[in-house]
Structures are given as structure tokens and as C-alpha cells.
């Protein structure tokens, strides 16, 4: 079963986190090793980090389908910072991976314990239906 694990942490206009270099490096190394382990275990389907919200645009179709873009606003909401798609044996395993991502170190090496949203990726139907 596949799960998408979404890290919703960034806020528009918040900019690049202002952490000491050593903490930043520890954070990056932690995420890298998570990714390596998922690759190693044969569970990684995809993982991407997204650009900061400063580069995000809200797009709507105007007359004739012409795209109309708008900036994003600092007060709006949390933004997706990155995601993993994992293919795991059980939901519990997906939650364990999410918890590990959540505990990534932040300033001072303290675990961030940030919220990670875990959602099943839609799959094929069961073989028999009523």
C-alpha cells in the first residue's frame, strides 16, 4: 500500500529558516539519511522537496482558459514543504516513517516534531464487489 507523507511546515514570507549552520547541516543530513534508508528498504516511490513559498503562485483559468497568476499571501496558511511517497506493508509502517521525518532536528538539535500528514494513495478496487 502506498502512502503520501506530507510535511506542511512553511509559511509564506517566513523565508529561509534562520538556524545556526551546524543545526542546518544536521537537519539536512537527517533527511538525507531517511531518504537513503527508504531507498535501501525498497519502500521509496518518490520524494521531493519544494521551493520556498516565495516562489509559489496561485493560478486560475481566466477567460478562454488563459492562466491568471497571483502571488501567495503571508497570512494564508501553511505550505507543503516536501513529500514522500512510500510503498509499505502496513499503515503502521507508514506512520513510523512519518514519525521519523517529524523528529528531524531543528535549532539546537532538538527534534522539531513537526506535523506530517500521512494519507493513503488511492489504489485499485478489491477484486469482488457486491
Amino acid at each position, binding site marked *: 500500500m502506498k502512502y503520501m507523507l506530507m510535511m506542511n511546515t512553511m509559511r509564506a514570507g517566513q523565508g529561509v529558516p534562520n538556524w545556526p549552520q551546524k543545526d542546518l547541516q544536521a537537519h539536512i543530513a537527517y533527511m538525507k539519511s531517511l531518504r537513503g534508508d527508504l531507498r535501501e*528498504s*525498497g519502500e521509496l*516511490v518518490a520524494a521531493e522537496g519544494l521551493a520556498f513559498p516565495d516562489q509559489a503562485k496561485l493560478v486560475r483559468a481566466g477567460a478562454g482558459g488563459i492562466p491568471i497568476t497571483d502571488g501567495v499571501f503571508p497570512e494564508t496558511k501553511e505550505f507543503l514543504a516536501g513529500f514522500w511517497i512510500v510503498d509499505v*506493508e502496513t499503515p503502521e509502517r507508514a506512520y513510523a516513517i512519518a514519525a521519523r521525518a517529524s523528529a528531524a532536528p531543528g535549532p539546537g538539535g532538538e527534534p522539531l516534531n513537526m506535523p506530517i500528514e500521512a494519507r493513503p494513495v488511492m489504489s*485499485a478496487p*478489491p477484486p469482488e464487489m*457486491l
Partner: protein
Amino acid sequence: MPKPWDDASERLLRELAPRALGAVARRFHDFAAAEDAVQEALLAAFTQWPGEGSPEHPLAWLIQVASRRITDGIRGDAARREREAEAARFNPAASWFPEAPPSETDDTLILLFMCCHPALTTSSAIALTLRAVGGLTTAEIAAAYLVPEATMAQRISRAKQSIRASGAPFRLPSPAERAERLPAVLHVLYLIFNEGYASSAGKRLQRLDLAQEAIRLARCAKDALPGHPEAAGLLALMLLTDARRAARTGPGEELIPLNKQDRALWDHAEIAEGLALLSAALAQGAVGTYQLQAAIAAVHDEAPRPEDTDWRQILALYDLLKRVSPGPVVALNYAVAAAMVHGPAKGIELLDALEREGSLAEHHRPDAVRAHLLEMLGDRQNAIEHYRAAAARTNSLPERNYLMAQAARLEESSG
């Protein structure tokens, strides 16, 4: 004389894969290395044979190419000594690799038991079975399961590490061990079938058809295990289910439930084969979960129209299945059958009891069943609610669309 390449040559090549692997594994006393080498030989064959024609002795060709890969690998390897040391550590006693080649069905069987080893996770067992026994390439398996090729390759490599660590010998398990481990083998084949059957939409478009592959492997298992009627039961179940494939989805790939399917589209030759297999299996007198499920599928398949379905027999079969392999899904299906025999109120009563037990919590199926039964009772408003509740909880996109369509249909018919 090389032979021209066609679908039959491809089938032959895939059938030779487990035999080549058996021979190479015995020769080099290393299952993991042999499995890699045979995969490379298969890739070479898939590249060369279509253009140059198949060699006269394809099995010998595969064994030779795979053996050369292994010896080249040993010679060219900078870390040769390390590998030899490792080989010495892991190499099982020579008696684990009997030199006398067993029959070809033995090789398939050895590999099936090896690939479905209890030390493996289900997903690794599936991947390794498809590669080692099915002769599929990693890329094909990855595409079938919609994961990157590197991920699938890693899964297969880990599976082989686990087998190596478990010290499983490359030989046929003893009859007692075989009986004990057979359910795991059949379960892996069953899961491969389900994946293929569930994700296919009517027409067979993909080159790799997992349901067909599972049927092929189940056929091998049945031939190699004549004394085990559950192997035949599984094959019968697959055939009796697969027979409905063309009728199971509409033009927009939407799901069509059993009672709305155009039964003229069912594959009656496949049904006949399944029925014959099933009666032969049942005659052996060791009934099990696959034979019972096949028998239920057979009752559906034998009804010319939905209203001709012998629900009493289905109810009796689910009653047996509840005892042989109890579980929430079987209990739910029992409730459906009971509703068809004794009326929807009886089904709802059983459903209430199941929900009180709490075994179906967080599952969408009870809501879908309840919606259906409420609709049968004429309680449209509650049926709509339960169809929607089920739609919100299913993880299947086609099923969600189906359930939302049911709710919308009832909504419109009430206006």
C-alpha cells in the same frame, strides 16, 4: 537453425527461467548470484533472440550465458577475496545442492518455496517470485506495481539477503515442511492475481498481465503439487474469477457489480476449466479456503441471470468458510448472502452484530453493504448516507466513483 521470434518464443523463454536458475544455483551453490546471472541472461535473450532468432537449445544457452556471467564476475571482481570469504561463510554444505538435477517441476517448486520464504515480507516475496519463477524483468515488475525500477531492484536484492541470512537450503522442503509452508506460497500467488485482476480494466492492454502471470504460476504449482487440492483450488478460484473480467468494467472503466454484468461477456471456456479443476480438487476430500472461495465463485458463474443465483448454496459455503478461515471480510460476505436468502433485514441484523464486535472498525465495506441492504429495504435516505460514508473511507478510486454514483443515482430518483 535459429527459430523466428514470436509470442510462443517469449513464453518458452519465461518458462525456461526457473529451470535455468535451478541448474545455475546448483552448479555455483549460490542462489542469490545465480538469480542475478539468470536475470542478465534473460535480458540478453530478450535483446538478442528477437533479431537473431532463438538458439536451437535455448535452455543450454541460458545456463551457459548465466554461468559465464558468474565466472566473469568472480574473475573481474576487485573485491574477489572478500567475496570468496563471504561465500565460504555463507556457503551451505554441498549436500544442500544435490548435484543430480531434479525434474523441472521440482525446480519450480524449490523456487516457489524459496521465494515465498517466511523470512521475507510479502512485497519482497511477490517481487522475487515474479522474477525468479516467472522470469519477468525487474522493469516489468516495477511497472506492474507502479514503483521505480530501482525500488523494485532493491526489494529483490533485500529478499535475497534475507534468504541467504536464513540459511535456507536450495532443495525441496520435506513433505511435512511443504504442507506447513504451502499456505504462504499460495497466498503470494493469490495476491499477485488480485493485484492484476483488480487493476485491469476489461481489455488486456498491458504487455505484462499480472492476473495471467498468477494463473500461469498457479498452474505450475498445481502440477507440481498433485497431492494438495488447495493448489488446484487456488487455480480454479483464479480462473472462475478471471472469467468475468471483460464484464467487470464499463466503457469508461467504471466498475460494474456482479448483478449488473453482461454475462454473455464472461469467458465460458475459462469457467468450464475452473469447474472441472474444482470438482477434481473437492473429490480429494481436503477442503480449504481456496476451494471454498472457488466454489462460491462457481455458483455465481453458473447462474445464467443474477436472479438465478443459488444464494442458499452460497450461504452454506460462507458458513463453511467462516469456520475454515474466519475473518471480518468473510463475516461480512456471510451477512450479504444471508440477506439474499432471508431478506435485507436479516443482513442488517448481522451487520449490527459485527459492528458491535468492532472487528470492522475503520473499514468502508460495512457501510457499502449497509447502503445496499437499506436500498433493498427501500430506505433511500439512509442508503444515500451510507453510500457516501463508504465513499469517504475507501482507498480505491474506481470504487469511490462507484459508491458516489450510487448515492447520486438514489438522490436523483427521489426527486
